[in-house]
């Protein structure tokens, strides 16, 4: 530790503060030591205090310079001149701290002290805290230790039913480790094969009604030892390989205010005791049993059975009975535990009552068992019952209990045989459930579903059918037959379809559209699907599904109407544009004629008139196109030589091609037979396609007669006729190709109506043919017009 000797000049309040600071300082690296004070006033507070503390004082500060080993003078007079003087006069080894510095120093020191004080406080507090935590932990560990180390199997659940403790002994008892159990609500798992609340859960829930019930059902009684605790004895068949007998004690865990925070359960296993007893009994019985090998028949019988004697003890418990109950004959014979496989708690069984001859009680106790006297065996009873405790899901048993009488007619025992019909019951339930499901499905389907028997009598008529046809199901079912809801015509059509391959294979109808008659005898359009039902190749009825098409038809009509309106809209726009151009031509012609008349130039009149005529012709053309396009028409079929037709059109196009500098190439397959087609329609179509091909060669990029248009005819696979019109013109980009068949789309400005290709396509499709194309921008386009083979009949209609 380093020591600093300090002297102070000026004995006022500052001096007192520093004195206090020095005297109150804690042990540190540097220890301050006050060795002298100077002040001209001998009554100054600092001087007085120093005198009391035996510290050197003087009125002349120069005296301080002589104090041995003085390290620091603190000047507190606040006189800057004095500070300067001292600075000059003081010996070199003494440092000077003026009033300002001293103030700062004091502040720092005070802060430092406060920090130290705070640190100490924290240290103290945390120490206390740690001590209390340790105590809590110790207590907890003690409690835990008690539970954990206890030889009694125990577990604890909290109020949310989660396991918080599961001790070593409990692990051993249940075979479930605390690691897998703690934090879960699986406390039921070691004890039962399905989830059910344990006594602990009941206690935590603290529902008086549940507790009351549990008390009744579980032979539960209040613990005489533990406050609010319950006790019970159980045999838990699922615990351990042979089941376990347990004595159970469960009690709530309450907080200081008496609220239940959890429950603790302790077990005591008394299986060992029971086993010992049984073993002793069994060995006694063994000898007896072996003597009676004659009864081996019983033992070997596939029917579960057991026999009790007059004293209610089991004398036989056969192999099948072992299998049924899971209880071995070794453990059963000689005991009166015949109730045990069948009931949760001990009770008098039918066999016992038979021996007592207590028919009144039999009738009373077994009221719910559908008990009846056996028709076959004198004095015997038969019953059916569901035993919920037998087997993992309970067992349905048919049982027959017959008394065994001696020669004198005295009852010597009783024999009980069983028949397990669980499988049948489960199947019945399953079928019933599935039937209910199907019935539900049928009843609630939006589609109408109707089923009939072999004579057309209606057996199923669901809500959907009722809604479509306006009948209530009860008006129909069992009262009406098919012909009454089918018109005569429809009935015939439906029968025909069922027995032919029309609308789906024989015996079925798929999506046939027919009219059914509703209650008001109005025809209702429906989509009709159905199937005939067969049993061993004999028709036994039918099921049909009907969908109401009224809404569908209404929507279809609306859609068609909307489409027509849209078409009219675009037609008006397209036509207006084209007419405007024709009008301009007519105006031009009129202008030329006027000019010619005023100049008396007859030749010019002729030219102007020709111009007017050409435009009138154009109006004629567009009107024809529009008529073709707008009207649904059937082609006027004639036998036509396709090559002749193509040649005719090519000739017409010669002039146009010549002006455009385009070469027309004919590639007509010789010897093509005549094909049925509409002459005008296909003529116009070819004119259109060849005209387009020439136009595409005259646009930008093809110069000086480089354009070639080829017209090819052939009959692929010898059927129909194919016209292929190809050009090496501009081709089309994808955008143009997409819009190609759209109405009034044109790339030819005012020269095109945009109707050519739609009209051509329509004509071809009216023939049942196909118009397709392939185009590459900058390379050309190929159009294929394919007409199918049609055969004209003598009367001019198509076959």
């Amino acid at each position: 530790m380093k020591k600093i000797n300090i002297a102070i000049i000026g004995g006022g309040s500052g001096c007192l503060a520093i004195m206090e600071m020095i005297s109150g300082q804690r042990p540190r690296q540097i220890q301050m030591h006050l060795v002298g004070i100077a002040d001209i006033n001998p009554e100054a507070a600092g001087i007085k205090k120093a005198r009391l503390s035996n510290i050197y004082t003087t009125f002349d500060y120069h005296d301080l310079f002589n104090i041995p080993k003085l390290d620091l003078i603190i000047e507190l007079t606040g006189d800057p001149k004095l500070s300067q003087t001292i600075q000059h006069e003081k010996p070199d080894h003494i440092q000077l701290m003026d009033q300002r510095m001293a103030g700062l120093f004091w502040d720092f020191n005070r802060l430092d002290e406060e920090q130290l004080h705070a640190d100490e406080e924290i240290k103290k507090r945390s120490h206390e805290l740690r001590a209390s935590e340790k105590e809590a932990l110790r207590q907890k560990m003690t409690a835990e230790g008690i539970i954990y180390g206890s030889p009694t199997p125990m577990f604890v659940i909290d109020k949310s039913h989660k396991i918080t403790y599961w001790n070593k002994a409990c692990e051993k008892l249940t075979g479930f480790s605390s690691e897998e159990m703690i934090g879960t609500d699986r406390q039921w798992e070691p004890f039962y094969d399905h989830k059910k609340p344990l006594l602990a859960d009941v206690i935590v829930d603290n529902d008086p009604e549940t507790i009351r019930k549990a008390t009744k059902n579980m032979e539960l009684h209040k613990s005489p030892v533990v406050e609010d605790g319950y006790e019970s004895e159980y045999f838990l068949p699922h615990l351990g390989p042979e089941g376990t007998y347990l004595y159970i004690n469960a009690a709530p865990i309450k907080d200081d205010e008496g609220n239940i925070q959890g429950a603790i359960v302790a077990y005591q296993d008394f299986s060992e005791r029971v086993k010992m007893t049984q073993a002793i009994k069994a060995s006694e019985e063994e000898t007896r049993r072996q003597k009676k090998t004659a009864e081996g028949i019983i033992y070997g019988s596939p029917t579960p059975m057991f026999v009790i004697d007059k004293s209610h003890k089991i004398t036989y418990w056969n192999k099948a009975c072992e299998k049924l109950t899971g209880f071995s004959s070794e453990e059963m014979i000689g005991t009166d535990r015949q109730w045990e496989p069948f009931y949760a708690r001990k009770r008098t069984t039918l066999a016992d009552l038979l021996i007592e001859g207590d028919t009144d009680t039999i009738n009373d106790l077994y009221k719910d068992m559908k008990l009846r006297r056996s028709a076959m065996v004198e004095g015997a009873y038969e019953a059916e019952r569901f035993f919920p405790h037998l087997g993992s899901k309970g067992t349905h048993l048919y049982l027959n209990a017959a008394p065994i009488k001696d020669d004198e007619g005295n009852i010597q025992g009783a024999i009980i045989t069983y028949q397990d019909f669980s499988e049948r019951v489960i199947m019945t339930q399953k079928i019933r459930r599935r039937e209910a499901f199907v019935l539900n499905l049928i009843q609630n389907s939006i589609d109408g579903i109707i089923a009939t028997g072999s004579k057309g009598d209606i057996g199923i008529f669901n809500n959907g059918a009722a809604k479509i046809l306006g009948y209530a199901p009860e008006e129909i079912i069992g009262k009406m037959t098919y012909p009454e809801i089918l018109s005569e015509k429809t009935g015939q059509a439906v029968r025909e379809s069922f027995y032919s391959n029309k609308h789906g294979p024989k015996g079925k109808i798929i999506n046939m559209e027919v009219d059914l008659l509703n209650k008001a005898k109005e025809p209702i359009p429906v989509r009709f699907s159905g199937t005939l039902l067969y049993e061993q190749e004999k028709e036994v009825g039918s099921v049909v599904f009907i969908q109401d098409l009224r809404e569908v038809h209404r929507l279809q009509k609306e859609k068609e109407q909307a489409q027509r309106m849209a078409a009219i809209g675009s037609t008006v726009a397209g036509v207006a544009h084209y007419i405007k151009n024709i009008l301009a031509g007519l105006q031009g012609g009129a202008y030329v004629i006027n000019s010619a008349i005023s100049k008396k130039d007859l030749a010019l009149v002729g030219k102007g008139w020709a111009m007017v005529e050409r435009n009138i012709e154009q109006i004629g053309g567009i009107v024809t196109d529009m008529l073709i396009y707008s009207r649904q028409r059937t082609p006027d079929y004639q036998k036509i030589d396709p090559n002749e037709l193509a040649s005719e059109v090519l000739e017409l196009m010669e002039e146009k091609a010549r002006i455009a500098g385009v070469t027309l190439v004919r590639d007509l397959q010789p010897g093509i037979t005549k094909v049925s087609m509409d002459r005008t329609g296909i003529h116009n179509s070819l004119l259109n396609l060849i005209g387009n091909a020439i136009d595409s060669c005259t646009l930008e990029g093809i110069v000086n007669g480089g354009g070639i248009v080829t017209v090819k005819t052939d009959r692929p696979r010898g059927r129909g006729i194919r016209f292929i019109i190809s050009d090496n013109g501009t081709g089309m980009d994808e955008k143009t190709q997409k819009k190609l068949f759209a109405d009034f789309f044109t790339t030819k400005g005012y020269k095109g109506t945009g109707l050519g290709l739609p009209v051509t396509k329509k004509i071809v499709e009216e023939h049942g043919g196909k118009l397709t194309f392939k185009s590459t921008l900058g390379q050309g386009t190929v159009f294929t017009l394919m007409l199918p083979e049609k055969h004209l009949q003598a009367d001019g209609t198509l076959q």
Partner: protein
Amino acid sequence: MPEKILIVDDDPDIVLFLSTVLKDNGYRTIEATNGQEGLEIVRIEHPDLILLDLMMPKKSGISLLSDLKNDPDSKKIPIIMVTGVSGETGHDLASFFKGSSTGDQDSKAMIPEGYLEKPVDPEKLLGMVKKLLQSA
């Protein structure tokens, strides 16, 4: 000597109409039915103004316009594009030409001095022709 105006159009009706309008108003007209022919006539006849259709066989109006404007001998001849391609058919020629005027030197050469949409209004045509011939 009246000014000589070349009409290039493949539609004889248009040619007849335009030539009648122009002749009635004191101009001389010469005619060509495609771009190729038009180019040859320009080189021989040196017209004072050209009315040019846009789409024609053999050589389009655009192609001819480009040739003429790139040739020092003919680039000063005012050209009026006469076109049926209008906003209604999806091609806006006004903005097409405006678009090229913001481009480089080559496309700048493509700008015609005027353009008219078909159907051509005689008054409009005459006004434009007069104005262009005066400023030439």
